[in-house]
Structure formats: C-alpha cells, structure tokens
C-alpha cells in the first residue's frame, strides 16, 4: 500500500473529536505504522475483537493519535491463525498491550521479543481466552501463584527485593521486583494482573445504563473520565450530541475530579517525605471539595452522574455560589501551601532530581498525561483535538522539562490553578437551557465508536463495538497507566530503594484500570 492509497482509504468517523478509521490487511500493518510513527504519531491503545460468528474472523484494533486527529486501524485476522506483526519495536507501549490481547483474546503478535503472559495468572488456562465468545468459565481453576519468569540481574552483591502484591500501605495490589546493590536500584520489574476483574466481559450485552456503571468503576479515582469516554463512544455511534448544558456540567465534573486527585496527591507527596503537615492541610481541602460534591451532586466522587446522552444532575444557583466560594478558598490555601513546599529545604531536597525521566526517553516510550507533561511531552486532550466544551475553554497546558518528582509536583500545582480558572469559566457559561440529556437507550447495529477525554492522570479512552442487534459486543477501556507504568521502571533506576514510594506516588498510576 502506497502512502497515497493509504490516505485515500481513510474514512471519517462520526465523532465528538476528529477521528478517522481504515481497514488494513495484516501485511500492510507494519508499513503503515512505520509511516505514522515517523510522522510523530503516538499509540493510544490496542485490542482485539471476536467476530467469528459474523464473518469468521478476529479483528485487531489499533488506536493512534496522529497530527490530523485520532486514527483507528482495523486489521481482520484469520480465525484459524489470528496472527499480526509485532508493533512493540515501533511503539514500546504495544509490548504489554499485545501480551494482554493474547491472554484475553488469543490473537498473537508474531516474533514479539516478549511473549510472556501479562494479565493471566492462574484464573484460566493457557489455551483458554476469556474474551472469545465461546469461552466457558471454569469454576474449579485455581489461583495459586503462577511461576512468572522475571528477568534476573546477576553480579557480585546483587540481590532481589520482592514487594507485593499486598503492599505496606492503603494501596492497590501489584508486584514489584527490585534488583539492588546496597541501597541502589539496578532494575525494577513490575508484575500486575492481580486486580483483573474481567470487566471487559461484564460489559458485553449489558444495557447502556448498566454498562455505564461498569465504566464508572474501571478505575474509581477516574470515574468521571471513564464515564464520559464511554458515553461519548455511545453518543458517537448513535450520532447524537448531548445538550450544551450537559457538556458544561461534564467538564465541571471532570475538573472537580482532577482537583480532588491533585489535592490528595500533593498531600501524600508531602507525607512521603515526612512532612505530615502537607498531608493534613491538603486532605482538609480535598475533604471540603468531596463534601461539596456530595451536597451539590449527591455523590462524593460523582459516580454515575454522567449518563449516555447527557448528565443526571443539575447545578442550582445556590450551588454556583458554593463552588465560587470554594474556588476562592482553594486558591488562597493552595497558594500558601505551594510557597511552604517550595521554601522547605528538606522537602525540596527529596523532590529535586528524584525519579528523573529525561524528555527524549519520555518521547521514545510514549509517556503521556500529567507525568508526561512533567517530562516535556506537551500533550493534553483538552488542548489537542479537544471535545466540546473544551474547544471553547482555551485550556492552558502545564509543561516542564525536568522530569523529576519536583516537576510532577509543579505540574499538579499549575493544573490546580488552571482547573479553578476553568471551573469559574464553566460557571459563567452555565446559563440558559434546562435540558440535561437527550436520552439514549439503544444503539445501531454493527457500529464502532470511541470516546477519549483527558482524565487527571492522562488520556482515558473507551472503545465500543455493537453487534448485529445493536447490543454491546465488545467494550475496551484504556487507562493511561498502560503508557506510564513501564516508564516508572526507568524512573527508579539508579535511585535508592527508600525513594521508591515517593517516586511511585509522584506518578500515582492505576492498578485496577489497566488490570481490567
């Protein structure tokens, strides 16, 4: 396929964000991805679908962000030999995504250097694939620890520290294998999948209301981002646009989710350098925000407030007043706390230089979201190819080049200031219109669509495929942690073991989200 043929075969997707799609043969996949990768495209997600009942094949789907918008590649795969060429050489993030796609769907990246299992431990057998339509769950399969082949580091004085899955704090489970000399970390290898809940299978054939509940619980700290992305996907498929007021309210919810998480993280980052004052102060602010969420919208984390077609709750005039007062209170307190953090020699000594990810490495590995912006990866889905109402908000993106814990702290401080500004601008625009949703109950048959929003951690994407009856045949939620977890393995290298909790916290990645 020539470049001209490729461009001519692109078809636009009806979508709230600029998106195109194309169907490719496996043999063309590498050439196309090479052109896209050289043109600066980034791989967002990769997943498989089982279409054997409909047309006797599997399909691989690859979503990329190109200079012209989002592009989804659909690659039909032979039902008896569902193979496709390995993409991890062009896009390193494909490594774990391809392994997960094999574990769940049995489609295989040929000649991939790393073919170890990723999400499968012991809950199902090697030759079983849970996302295939003919999968039968085996209730007797055990869940004893599997014998995962970690990469070991040899040499005089090298030893290993295994940590997890159960960690020392209040945190999700995952396993970290450190190879160290003295205090210095030579290598970190992550092993996840402990949180695998089979959520993609649970989406199948659910009605939209029920599926939306699952979307809001892929990763609870990003409930709004996932709900919005899922609803956007269904609205794109149904070719409807929610009322303006609903879109403004969605943006308000998303910024409040960002504020709550950034406030919480800044508190814990203080706590992790033994500055408990920071924890207490920031968590007072977070608690006040959550309480306002509960009193204004009926839920501290705003779960299930976004619905397909719109939103479920409105903001009253009194509510506007409460948010305005809260914004002022947050602005003043966060400014004071920022100067205290910046002038505290002990805090800065721990923050500066710890867990550094240089911009070239970040670019090569496809780092994204908040952590990416702290390593000069200037991408923010609220700025680039933004969906309504962000196209009217003129979001100011925070980016820094240092790529250390200090940079990730500063990005959070800057983004709090910006979210408070956006919140005010949203309140000004929340005038007129009382309609909250264009109800959406059914979807057209055999359609594909996706939604993508910038959650507090990074780009959250949900892809939706419908079957011949308009039912949900396949739903694939993608967490930005897929991109950034492998980068944490690089960030810790050469640092000392006691700095790991701090560096890990500065990324604050999700386990439940990518474990699916």
């Amino acid at each position: 396929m020539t470049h001209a043929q490729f461009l001519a075969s692109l078809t636009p997707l009806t979508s709230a964000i600029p998106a195109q799609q194309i169907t490719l043969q496996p043999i063309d996949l590498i050439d196309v991805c090479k052109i896209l990768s050289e043109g600066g495209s980034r791989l967002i997600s990769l997943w498989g679908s089982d279409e054997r009942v409909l047309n006797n094949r599997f399909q691989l789907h690859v979503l990329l962000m190109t200079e012209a918008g989002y592009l989804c590649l659909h690659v039909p795969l032979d039902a008896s030999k569902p193979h496709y060429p390995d993409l991890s050489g062009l896009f390193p993030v494909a490594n774990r995504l391809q392994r997960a796609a094999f574990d769940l769907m049995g489609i295989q990246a040929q000649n991939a250097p790393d073919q170890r299992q990723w999400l499968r431990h012991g809950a199902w057998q090697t030759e079983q694939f849970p996302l295939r339509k003919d999968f039968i769950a085996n209730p007797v399969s055990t869940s004893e620890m599997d014998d995962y082949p970690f990469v070991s580091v040899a040499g005089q004085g090298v030893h290993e520290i295994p940590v997890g899955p159960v960690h020392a704090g209040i945190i999700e489970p995952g396993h970290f294998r450190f190879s160290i000399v003295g205090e210095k970390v030579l290598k970190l290898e992550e092993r996840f999948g402990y949180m695998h809940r089979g959520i993609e299978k649970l989406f199948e054939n659910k009605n939209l209301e029920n599926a939306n509940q699952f979307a809001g619980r892929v990763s609870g700290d990003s409930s709004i981002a996932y709900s919005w992305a899922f609803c956007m996907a269904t609205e794109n498929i149904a070719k409807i646009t929610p009322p303006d007021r609903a879109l403004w309210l969605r943006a308000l919810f998303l910024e409040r989710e960002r504020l709550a998480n950034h406030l919480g993280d800044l508190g814990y980052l203080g706590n992790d350098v033994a500055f408990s004052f920071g924890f207490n102060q920031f968590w007072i602010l977070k608690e006040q925000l959550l309480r306002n969420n509960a009193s204004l919208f009926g839920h501290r984390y705003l779960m299930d407030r976004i619905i397909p077609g719109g939103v479920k709750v409105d903001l009253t005039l009194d509510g506007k007043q409460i948010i305005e007062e809260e914004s002022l209170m947050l602005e003043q307190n966060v400014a004071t706390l920022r100067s205290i953090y910046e002038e505290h020699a002990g805090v800065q000594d721990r923050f500066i230089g710890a867990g550094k990810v240089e911009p070239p490495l970040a670019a090569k590995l496809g780092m994204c979201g908040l952590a990416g912006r702290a390593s000069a990866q200037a991408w923010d889905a609220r700025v680039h190819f933004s969906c309504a109402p962000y196209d009217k908000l003129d979001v100011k993106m925070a980016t820094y080049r240092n790529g250390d814990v200090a940079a990730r702290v500063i990005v959070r401080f800057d983004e709090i200031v910006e979210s408070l500004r956006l919140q005010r601008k949203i309140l000004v625009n929340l005038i007129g219109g009382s309609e909250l949703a264009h109800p959406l109950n059914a979807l057209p048959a055999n359609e594909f669509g996706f939604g993508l929003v910038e959650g507090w951690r990074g780009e959250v994407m949900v892809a939706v495929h419908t079957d011949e009856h308009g039912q949900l045949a396949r739903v694939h939620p993608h967490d930005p942690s897929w991109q950034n977890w492998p980068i944490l393995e690089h960030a810790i290298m050469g640092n000392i073991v006691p700095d790991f909790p701090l560096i890990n916290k500065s990324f604050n990645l999700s386990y439940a989200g990518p474990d699916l």
Partner: protein
Amino acid sequence: MYQTLKQILNTGIRTETPPGVDESLRTETDRLQHEILAAFGGALAIRMVDAGSCNTCEQEVHALNNPYYNLEGLGIKFVASPRHADLLMVTGNVTRHMLTGLKRTYDAIPAPKLVIAIGDCACSGGLFNDSYACCGKVSNIIPVDVVVSGCPPTPTAILQGILTVISTKPTAK
C-alpha cells in the same frame, strides 16, 4: 517556618465527633470473647487489603486519616505488616488472582483477629459476581465480623463499622 505555623493556627482543629456503634452492621457474633475485646481497649491496628476494588473505597479509607475523622486520635492506626495487626480490612469482590494474597494475609495475622468488609463489592459482591475472574464477597473466603456497604461507603460509615467491630456486644455485658 513562620508561614507553616501560621497556616496551622489559621486551620484550627477540624476533628469531628466520631459516630456511635451500629449493631446492625455485625454479621458474626460470639467470635471473640468479651474479655478479649476489652483487652483491645479501643486501640486497634488495622491491615488493609484491596482484593479487587476499583480504588474508590481506598480513597475513602485514606480520608479516615484526614483531620476531620482523625482516626489515629481514636487510637486506631493502619500498620504495614499483618503480623502487627488486630483487624483485617478488605475491599473489593475478591479476584481469583488475589485469592492467595488475601488468604495468606489473613493467616499471617495473629489470633484473635477481626475482619471488616468495606463497600458493596466486599459485602455482597456488588456488580462483579458474574465474572469469570472473581470469587465473590469476602465472606466466601474468610470469616467476616462486620460489613459496611456503600459504593463507596462514606468515611463516617467506615469509622462506624470499625468502632462497632471493637465494641463489645450488648449481650456480652
């Protein structure tokens, strides 16, 4: 330093009165004798395990440590090792991949021990009972003394559950 002290003074004391005990949260009775519960004396060490939650329940458990709920002020704290714990707090519909981790943590806690299940997934299985990857509610795996439902339960509800599990039952008096 001046600025830090000024901020502390301006903040004042935010801690609120803790909720009372709620007997209806109890699922197991007579598991621990009155004398043993009395020995806990209100002080308690908690080991927390996320066995399959979406991380929202964890957010609320974190909130217990903020100055409004001031858990440590009540003599209750989270500990890093199950060997140091009196109570196991579990969230989530137990995933098959966490089954071993949960059982081993429970076994590592010295007897007498208490278990509290937090959130709809841990109490009843929530939305995840039909999954090929999940084992259902926590009491399918280990004995549970108190359940606190909600998606997620508020910090006040979780605190009430903790205070209930360490209170002695009225019948034991």
